[in-house]
């Protein structure tokens, strides 16, 4: 009788130990850190950052002709003041055999964190119309600072 009790208590102890070990393993393996489950919060850039904005409604009304006015917004999206921002615009055709791209430049002397300024360019988009086949026009805008902060946006206009 005592042998049976001894055997039963031994089996119960073994069961409890095994179950405990499984629980430990299960908890260890199934508990991703809170960090990995947390959705990405909206990025709040730290350090310098530039953002370029090209108004789509204005882009939609541009024609493949000279003197097409386009206002480009430059926003300081970082947390430091930026100075001597160079803004350059390259207008070209989708047709790479036409080498006559048009280049435009402007600058922003200083831009506080979060500040936004606009620069207007009178673009000659006729270069795309010179292609023998209908070609898309490309407006490539870059903003750069001497400290190496930069941003690029490319607009593609249908033929």
């Amino acid at each position, binding site marked *: 009788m005592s042998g049976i009790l001894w055997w039963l208590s031994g089996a119960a102890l073994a069961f409890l130990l095994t179950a405990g070990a499984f629980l430990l393993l299960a908890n260890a393996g199934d508990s991703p850190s809170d960090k990995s489950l947390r959705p990405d919060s909206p990025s709040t850039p730290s350090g310098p950052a530039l953002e370029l904005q090209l108004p789509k409604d204005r882009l939609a009304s541009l024609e493949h002709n000279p003197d097409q006015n386009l206002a480009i917004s430059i926003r300081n999206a970082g947390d430091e003041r930026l100075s001597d921002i160079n803004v350059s615009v390259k207008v070209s055709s989708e047709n790479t*055999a036409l080498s006559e791209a048009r280049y435009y430049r402007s600058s922003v002397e200083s831009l506080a964190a979060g500040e936004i300024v606009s620069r207007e360019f009178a673009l000659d988009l006729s270069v795309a119309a010179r292609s023998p086949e209908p070609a898309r026009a*490309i407006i490539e805008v870059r903003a750069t600072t001497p400290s190496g902060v930069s941003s690029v946006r490319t607009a593609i206009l*249908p033929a």
Partner: protein
Amino acid sequence: MTLAALATGCGGATQIVQIKALPAGQDRADFGLGPGVRPLSHGPGDKSAPAWNPTDERVAFVVDGYVVDKPLYNQDLRRWTTKDFGASRSEWRSSEGLTIFAESPSPDPEEPGSVYRTLPKDTPFGVEKIAAGALAMSPGPGGEGLIVALETSPYESGIARIGGNGKMDQIYTNLIGGRVTGISLSPNGGQVAVAARGAATVALHVLDLATGDSKTIARLEPGMEIHGDPQWTRRGIYYVAGEEDTGESKLAPDHLYRVPAGSSTPEPAPGVGEDFVASSLRLSPNGERLAIVGRRNPASSTNLYILEPATDNLKAVTANEDMEIKTGPYDLAWSASGDRMAIVARGVISGPRVLSAPADTILTDFYNLYEVPIEAPEGDAP
């Protein structure tokens, strides 16, 4: 395929989570043409006429009328011609040389073109004209040399053979009636099939390269014309044909036809279905399969299909979502190994697009080359 099973929970419930492995190729981004499709170029430029080199390590193509080539997966472009060259297609002559077909600079589309070969690559943009008055060209038997169709008069064309040294080896005295619009080799390389537009009708001719004998094997209905090169398979000669281009909008789409071996009567190509709209086709290097750019019916999107003439089995190898696939006769090319194809496509845009990238890195907004994997036919798998 089960990769892992996780035991979870403490209440006695066990949840088995199966993680399936992705089929080969689906770990890549989808570029709007289906799984496994991979870009071979990017940036602006009206790209066309891809051609794989004999070792499938490089691809040549035409950009806005000039010829470049590049390693498959990087953008180290090598330009072979001046930008105003007017090239329409190229073929690899060897791993380091190209044959280039250039259109005439004349605005008259009926003006014949010229065939050039590239000079050693230390000669910048060095090309040598090897044939003038050219109407069509095909690689020669075994990939050696070239077969060209030449304009001899407004009503007749000649066939000539150009050797690997760029010299005209043989000019066949039997002329082809009409203006040649396409040419291709027979499966054994002993003959060429020639499409030619005569005064009244378009006809298919065959010329024996050993004897020079030629004969007309089929004639199309009046008002119909063949687009691109006919493709000669063991099951007959296939071609895309439709209404003659009169400059006005076409009402009827183009279809795929076949002149069965030993027959002189063209028939709708079996296997594709009567609604199938064909645009261009190319025979695989082993001659067993036809790649076709086309549509299942006039309302469906354009895709790349593989037709096996031996079984009449047709299979789509792209899953076009919203891309515009080029449909020119040379805008699709088999790799030398026959396990890939190159096609040209771009995204459709109806309004302006703004992207956060320099223009020369943008892909789908311009015509670019895409590599499409082609599975081996069933039974051919290792």
